[in-house]
Each structure stands twice: as structure tokens, then as C-alpha cells.
């Protein structure tokens, strides 16, 4: 923790200017629940911390067309309490409620959860299944990047903190005929890290799956979608047989590693099938009728 400068900025432009001026040695702070421990460990060389919580338009949760949009300084607790999100994106609300402890949820932000790039981040897994995109701005341009393209590796996102700022995440709302569910396996029932977590969104019509997205973590260094299982679910009838086959396929695709904290590779690979099965069953019960 050796930085010398702390800058409170009021606009995106000011934030970008502060990042550029520090030539890679600045870090953005919003909640700080991931950043502060990393700074204490001196994992990174930082000269300047840029506080973006004063930027008014990054605090919003709102609708933009058919999408819900969430600003960079919105905390997990604000997600859990939002009436709009409870109605439009209950999957994200459920995942946000699983993050950390009450203290961490009050302070930590969803965009921070994404940019911190841990593959098992609860909200990132839910947002991946929901087809989210992140708005990344620089002094030159503003781009929408699909969430699955945002991770470089464990703990490394593609947002270049010396010149870019992730300002907003958006994703389509759950529509009529769509079902969703979130599932999490862990050692004990508190803020322990997930051994596995998974989020699914299925689109259905007339007792058939039209399509489905299945996000599973942590089974690769980055965010992971079980694409072969997703292919299998397309056009299949809604039945226990389909669910069993899709869950099995997802388990074959997943490549968890042996982990002291999360469990062995063999165990977790088997558990992927169980978790995906349970979550798909729940998703069918959650199909929106209006």
C-alpha cells in the first residue's frame, strides 16, 4: 500500500485523464473489496487510486429498451434490493445475494466483480448466462464487449486499467417463455467460495427448448459456457431425458482442476452433472408465463 495520490473524480473524462496521466500505475476504486487486499499484498505497483464513486451517472440501475443497465458503482446490496431487477432479472438478484458477506455486498460492486475477473464470480456467471455486455470507454472510443470476451485469465480482465474504464453492464431482461435458475455448491452454508456454481437461461416454446445458455464455474481459467451442451438442448423436448443428457454433456465439457479449497477435479466433474441437472429442473419451474 504505497500509493501517494488519491483522486476523486466527478466525470468519466476526468477519470480517463487521471488513468492516462499515471501510465499504467493507477487503479480505479469503486467498492475496493477486491482491490484493497491486493494492494495490501503489494500484488501491483500503484501510484494513484482513482475514486469513481462521485460520478453521478455510474450509480444508475435502469431500463434501456429491452435491456437492463447497471452502472459501475452499483453495489451487490443495491442489486439485491432493486424492485426493477427483482422483476426483470431475478437471476442476477439471486446470484448477487450469494456474493461474500453482508459487509462485502454493501461495499463491493458488480462491475468490480466482473473486472476482478475471478472465473467463479457469482454475478459474472449469472450475467454470462444472461448474455451481458460491458461498456468499456477510453479517451478514443466507447465499445460494448460481450462479457465472455472480457476475461484474459484468472484475475486478469481485458479492461486496460491505464487507459480504459468499464462504466456499465447491460443485458436483456427475462422474457415470456424463458426460464432461469442459479445454483451453487459449497463446503458450508456461509460466505465460503463456491466449489461450483452455474447459471442457466432457457428459451422455450410449446414444450420444447428453443435454446439455452449454460454458464459453469470455476471449471476453466476464464468464464465458461458449456457450448456442446447448449447445442444439444436446442430444439429438444422439455423432458427429464433431455435434462439428463444435457447435464452429462456439460460435465464432459467442463475441465475443473484439483483444488484444495474447492475439491478434486474428479469429484467436481461429476458434480457438474448433478448441479446442471438440478438447475435445469429449477429453470423449467421458473419459466415466465407473461
Amino acid at each position, binding site marked *: 500500500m504505497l500509493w501517494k495520490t488519491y483522486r476523486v473524480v466527478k466525470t468519466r473524462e476526468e477519470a480517463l485523464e487521471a488513468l492516462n496521466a499515471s501510465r499504467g500505475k493507477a487503479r480505479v*476504486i469503486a467498492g*475496493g473489496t477486491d482491490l*484493497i487486499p491486493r494492494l495490501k499484498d503489494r500484488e501491483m505497483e500503484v501510484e494513484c*487510486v482513482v475514486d469513481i*464513486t462521485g460520478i453521478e451517472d455510474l450509480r444508475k440501475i435502469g431500463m434501456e429498451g429491452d435491456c437492463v443497465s447497471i452502472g459501475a458503482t452499483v453495489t451487490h446490496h443495491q442489486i439485491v434490493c432493486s424492485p426493477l431487477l427483482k422483476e426483470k432479472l431475478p437471476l442476477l438478484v439471486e446470484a448477487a445475494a450469494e456474493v461474500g*458477506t*453482508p*459487509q462485502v455486498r454493501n461495499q463491493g460492486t458488480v462491475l468490480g466483480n466482473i473486472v476482478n475477473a475471478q472465473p467463479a464470480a457469482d454475478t459474472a456467471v449469472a450475467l454470462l448466462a444472461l448474455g451481458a455486455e460491458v461498456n468499456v470507454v477510453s479517451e478514443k472510443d466507447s465499445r460494448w464487449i460481450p462479457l465472455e470476451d472480457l476475461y484474459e485469465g484468472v484475475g486478469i480482465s481485458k479492461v486496460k486499467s491505464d487507459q480504459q474504464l468499464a462504466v456499465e453492464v447491460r443485458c436483456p431482461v427475462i422474457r415470456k417463455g424463458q426460464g432461469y435458475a442459479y445454483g451453487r455448491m459449497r463446503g458450508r452454508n456461509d*460466505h465460503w467460495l463456491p466449489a461450483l456454481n452455474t447459471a442457466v437461461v432457457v428459451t422455450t416454446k410449446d414444450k420444447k427448448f428453443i435454446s439455452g445458455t449454460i454458464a459453469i464455474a470455476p471449471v476453466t481459467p476464464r468464464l465458461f459456457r458449456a457450448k456442446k451442451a447448449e447445442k444439444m438442448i436446442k430444439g429438444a423436448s422439455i423432458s427429464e431425458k433431455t435434462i439428463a443428457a444435457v447435464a452429462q454433456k456439460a460435465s464432459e465439457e467442463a475441465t475443473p482442476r484439483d483444488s484444495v479449497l474447492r475439491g478434486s477435479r474428479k469429484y467436481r466433474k461429476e458434480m457438474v452433472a448433478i448441479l446442471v441437472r438440478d438447475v435445469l429442473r429449477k429453470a423449467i419451474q421458473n419459466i415466465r408465463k407473461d
Partner: protein
Amino acid sequence: MVRVKHQVRMIVNGEEVIGWVEPRRTLLDFIREDLNLTGTKKGCDLGNCGGCTVLMGGEPINSCLVLALEAEDQEIVTIEGLSEGMNLHPLQKAFIQHGAVQCGYCTPGMILSAKALLDENPKPTELEVRMAIAGNLCRCTGYKKIVEAILSVAGGKHPPG
């Protein structure tokens, strides 16, 4: 090395506080070392144990994960802000009466998490109490007496005063 200090202003236990801090100072260190309010405990210093819990804007946060400068213009409540003179807060009385305190290290954070819960939800279920203190580790009591103490206040057995 020149150490630049920044001014910070916040309301701590109802009183305005103005201090000068280095950017790297955490809110926890500011509270303990600059304000001498040592009821707030430093445990893991990583946001896991909850010993440093204080209320910021009425919500529990880990003060070890917040920079003092981030708390600019915020209202902070520490354990010292709960009693009125020698008159303990109902939660403090309940913790004593139920034997919910052993070594005492987790107690300030535990009570503040409980206060935030009861301020928002005066009649919580046992599960809601357990969820509210999920971020506060106790290695002595096994939580049973802590949960009982909090529920007794929720049940009105310890009225204020």
C-alpha cells in the same frame, strides 16, 4: 519520500471529525489510531473476519477494506456510539445477559451487524439473524448464544433504556 496527506471529513458517532491522512490509510486504522476508538477490532485485515465492522450510512461494512478517504462525508457508527453514557444499548445488555461474549474480539462487529439488521427488520427470523451475522466470525461461542441474544432484543425483551 514526501508523504502527502489529504484532508478527510466524516461524522463519527454523531460528531464531525476532520483528519489528515495518507491515501493508503484504511478507515479501520483511522478509527483506531487517529480517533483512538479501539472498540473496532483489527483481525484478518482482509475482509474475512468482520472484527472491523462499522456502520457506514447505516450499513455494515468492513472498515479494513475501506480507505479513510472513501469515507468522506459519510456517517460512521462504531461500537462506542451505541451506548448513551453508562446506559448500554439493548443489544449490548442482551449480549451480556445471554453470555454471548467470551473473548470479546468479535463482539463489537457482531453487535453492529445485528443493529443494522434490527434497524431495517425489527422482527427477523432466526435464519435472517444468522444471515446478517454471516460476515462476523466468532471462534468461542458457537454462535448459539449470540443468535439468542439478538432474537431476544427482536422479541422486545430488552427495551431501550
